[in-house]
């Protein structure tokens, strides 16, 4: 009893389909030991889904039986060979049994009750022959065209599903899509565990295939329409969006390849795994910034995958050579892969799937999309946005740094990209500036999450040595760049020289004045000294004279006194 209740509470086990992306959506694959109905219109890939389920199963050690009602074994082998499936080898190795059940209504007459035991016997024989764990039946509904007793058929089909379940076989049953129901014959009533719908939609002349898990009993599953691709490696489904925003963030920084730009980005460059947008009008140097990142990535010895939507790889290589970036070298060394596709080649979803596949195969650390604006022609803005959200999300989870360029129209520079701006970690805007008859490139950092970054406008200079950033000059008339900046700088230098000359001249004049004044002072002092000397002489003479006179008077008076006492001649009196 306990064993029973234990098994009942266990989540259902799943059989990995091995189909790229599908196991992610369903959280592990198809329900183990149960039947899955795969329905869709003609050409949707039902047969391929069923076949890949078996081929991948064989690789995983679960052998399979493929019952085909529509194609002969030879046709089937040939058709799936283009997907890289070698049915003959798998059959030789006893990993796969293929049984072609041909129902020709023209040679069958019904006369009384019957059962489909013949089919059961064949199935059982094939299952035993390879020890199958998986069964694919493509397409059971053919029976309805070959046999007339539909009520008997339904009962038999129901019995078949039960029979498969009893043998614990994981089965894929394909069915044609019906008008008002999932399948033409209402098979979904019998297969109740898992139903997958494949559809093809055409928009703007390009077709996209979608997969949807309509029902998955006992399991959570993504319920969106997921685009899928069938190419030379089989089926691949792209999960629309990661269910949660739980990817790891990196604190690592990677150089943008332009030292000046790294300096603006807090001195270290972009965050690894961040999404970088380079927007700008035509010819502002978007692809060049992208090429720099590619170059820097390869220089670190990491792989870079560049998706070009407007130029051929050879053209990119030549153009970047002109600014001194040798991308050809990296391509040869295998670090750089350039994939050029026309956006109009296929629908948006197909692009997404193709991008997924290329990234998964090359495993780059940096992915460049140049330019994503070309997708705008492949869908509505909403569709493009959804696609890009999914792409960036996924690239983040893969720990990949993404740079995308966006060609904005000259009239609505930033508006165009607003839709995706929320997904962008670092947004670089390149702008033209037309001043005095010439056009120059400038670079702004509109935002850069999680780091201190420059708010300055820089001039983007292209040379044979690549991109350099220069400070722009703010003159009295606003921002000056290019030759206007150069001529302004020259004028300033000239003005300064003039000013310097003026100053020295003034200084010289002053000096002259000072020395003239000094000379005057000296002359005045000399004259004064002269006068003073003369004045002193005069004073001295005058004093001398007055002294002499005094002495004369004294001697006379003495003489006068002597005449009175002694007779003195008169002369002495005088």
């Amino acid at each position, binding site marked *: 009893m306990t064993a029973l209740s234990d098994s009942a509470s266990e989540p259902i086990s799943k059989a990995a389909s091995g189909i790229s992306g599908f196991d992610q959506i369903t959280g592990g694959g198809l329900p183990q030991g149960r039947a899955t109905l795969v329905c869709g219109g003609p050409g949707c890939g039902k047969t391929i889904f069923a076949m890949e389920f078996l081929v991948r199963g064989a690789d995983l050690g679960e052998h399979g039986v493929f019952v085909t009602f529509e194609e002969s074994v030879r046709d089937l082998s040939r058709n799936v060979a283009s997907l890289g499936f070698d049915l003959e080898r798998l059959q030789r190795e006893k990993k796969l049994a293929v*049984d*072609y*059940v*041909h*129902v*020709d*209504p*023209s*040679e*069958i*007459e*019904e*006369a*009384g*009750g*019957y*059962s*489909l*035991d*013949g*089919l*059961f*016997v*064949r199935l*059982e*024989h094939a299952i035993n022959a390879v020890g199958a764990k998986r069964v694919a039946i493509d397409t059971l509904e053919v*029976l309805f065209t070959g*046999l007339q007793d539909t009520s008997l058929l339904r009962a038999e089909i129901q019995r078949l599903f039960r029979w498969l379940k009893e043998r614990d076989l994981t089965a894929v049953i394909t069915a044609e899509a019906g008008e008002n129901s999932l399948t033409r014959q209402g098979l979904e009533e019998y297969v109740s565990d898992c139903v997958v719908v494949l559809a093809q939609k055409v928009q703007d002349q390009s077709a996209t295939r979608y997969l949807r898990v309509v029902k998955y009993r006992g399991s959570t599953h993504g319920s969106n329409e997921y685009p899928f691709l069938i190419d030379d490696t089989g089926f691949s489904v792209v999960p629309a969006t990661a269910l949660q925003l739980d990817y790891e963030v990196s604190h690592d920084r990677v150089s943008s390849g332009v030292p000046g730009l790294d300096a603006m980005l807090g001195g270290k460059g972009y965050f690894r795994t961040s999404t970088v947008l380079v927007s700008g009008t035509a010819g502002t140097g978007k692809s060049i910034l992208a090429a720099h990142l590619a170059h820097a990535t390869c220089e670190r010895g990491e792989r870079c995958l560049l998706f070009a939507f407007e130029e051929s790889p050879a053209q990119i290589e030549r153009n970047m050579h002109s600014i001194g970036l040798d991308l050809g070298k990296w391509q040869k060394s295998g670090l750089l892969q350039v994939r050029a596709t026309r956006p109009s080649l296929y629908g948006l979803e197909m692009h997404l799937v193709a991008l997924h596949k290329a990234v998964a195969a090359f495993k780059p650390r940096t992915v460049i999309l140049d330019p994503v604006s070309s997708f705008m022609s492949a869908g509505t803005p909403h569709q493009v946005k959804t696609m890009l959200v999914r792409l960036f999300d996924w690239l983040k989870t893969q720990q990949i740094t993404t740079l995308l360029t966006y060609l904005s129209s000259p009239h609505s520079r930033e508006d165009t990209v607003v839709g995706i701006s929320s997904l962008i970690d670092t947004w670089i805007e390149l702008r033209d500036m037309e001043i005095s008859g010439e056009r120059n490139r400038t670079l702004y950092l509109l935002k850069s999450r999680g780091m201190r970054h420059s708010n300055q406008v820089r001039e983007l200079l292209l040379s044979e040595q690549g991109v350099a950033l220069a400070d722009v000059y703010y003159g009295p008339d606003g921002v000056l760049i290019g030759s206007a900046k150069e001529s302004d700088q020259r004028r300033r230098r000239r003005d300064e020289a003039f000013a310097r000359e003026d100053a020295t001249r003034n200084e010289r004049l002053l000096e002259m004045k000072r020395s003239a004044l000094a000379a005057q002072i000296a002359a005045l002092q000399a004259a004064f000294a002269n006068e003073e000397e003369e004045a002193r002489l005069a004073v001295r003479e005058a004093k001398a004279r007055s002294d002499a006179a005094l002495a004369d008077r004294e001697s006379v008076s003495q003489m006068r006194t002597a005449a009175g006492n002694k007779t003195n001649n008169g002369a002495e009196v005088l």
Partner: protein
Amino acid sequence: MAIPASRNKQTARNSAPNLATEERWNLRLYVAGETPKCVQAFEHLKRICEEHLQGRYAIEVIDLLKNPTLASGDQIIAIPTLVRQLPPPVKKIIGDLTNTERVIVGLNLTPQVAAKRKSK
């Protein structure tokens, strides 16, 4: 579509009814074990043959439970299935053969025979 086509052939044979009498009939009955339907089918077949093809028929019974590989050769899905190997073309009749009318039509037995049977 298929059934009127076989009827046309039948009317073509009416012009030369004796042809059929010379022919040798090889019939193969596919069964899966001795289920009531299979047993019934064999009995019905035997009766019809005795009645219409006395002395010029052979019935080979193949039990798919014993020889499952033989099922794909004649593209057997339903059990029981009767396959007319000779005379050509190959014809298949599925079911327990309770509907004698359809067996006769399916096997292209002469309409006169069928009519005779009916009048009985």
